């Protein structure tokens, strides 16, 4: 049982708010349950959805790298609800389950290229030791990314990190709201 009830999303009248839930049901990341909690406060649902759209789905940084960072955060902070979701566009861009499996050992893995590793190192620093993001890390980032890409990546990782700390306190689960498709679910969650 969720700690905060799911808003009865079928009763949403505002086309914009309904659109956010419809998108979640069709494509996932985010799936509808977390959006149904946010829907209690339209300003919150709008804030998250707009920030997510602009920093994750769109933007100047490669979406697939942002998806790897999102899943690194999921594994790192143990947000199972988020970790059981997969971005459909990132999957189409080549992010597969083996890429997810080795995220916590990304530095020693040969599955990731140096660009991906630099982004993941930044995500790790942001989550665990943000004050220790040192010159070496910044030099590493700047050898692969523009300042605007780094800013967007940091803003996005901060956004998903915060949400992935909040969501585990809510005890929400998959396929509890608008369960029409398995879109955006990891294989294990989709077949559960």
């Amino acid at each position, binding site marked *: 049982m969720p*700690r*905060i*009830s799911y808003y009865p999303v079928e009763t949403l009248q505002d086309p914009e708010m309904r659109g956010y839930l419809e998108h979640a049901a069709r494509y996932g990341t985010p799936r509808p349950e977390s959006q149904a*909690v*946010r829907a*209690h*406060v339209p*300003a*919150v649902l*709008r*804030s*998250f959805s*707009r*920030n997510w759209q*602009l*920093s994750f789905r769109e*933007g*100047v940084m490669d979406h697939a790298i942002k998806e790897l960072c999102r899943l690194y955060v999921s594994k790192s902070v143990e947000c199972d609800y988020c970790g059981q979701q997969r971005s459909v566009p990132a999957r189409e861009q080549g992010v597969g389950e083996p890429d997810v499996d080795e995220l916590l050992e990304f530095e020693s893995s040969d599955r990731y290229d140096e660009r991906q590793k630099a982004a993941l190192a*930044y995500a790790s*620093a*942001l*989550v665990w030791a*943000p*004050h220790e*993001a040192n010159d070496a890390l*910044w030099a590493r980032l700047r050898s692969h990314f523009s*300042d*605007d890409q*780094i*800013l*967007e990546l*940091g*803003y996005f*990782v*901060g*956004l*998903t*990190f*915060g*949400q992935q*700390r*909040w969501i*585990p*306190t*809510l005890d929400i689960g998959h396929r509890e709201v608008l369960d029409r498709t398995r879109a955006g679910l990891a294989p294990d969650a989709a077949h559960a």
Partner: protein
Amino acid sequence: MPEPRIIGPDGPADALRARLPELYGAYAETRATVLEDGIVDRALKDLCARYLAEDEELMDFEGSDCFDERERAALRWTHAIAWSTDDADDELWDQLHAHFEEAELVELGYFVAFTLGQQHWMATLGLGPDGRPRS
């Protein structure tokens, strides 16, 4: 004093956000409608933000008589979100539901989560919780 890693026209965090105009628009709206306004009183949100920033006056809130039960419940949830999600147990949720409506809980939880993420991001940029260079 560490130098900010990327310098915007005015130095602080907003100048950096403004380099990504559309995203800055979403942030500015969030600040106007959720961070600085909304259904939960601003003073309580500020208290939670200061706790996230590890303000020394607040870290021992459990042992202080300066806070009422509503503030304590909010600070306990803030602590759980930032450092110990397992602390969000039945007892804490009973306290939260005793003092807040569900919509207030959504706004407060989102505020804490969003602020936590922004504070961590700004710290990587050499900025403090107020968006100014760390002293």
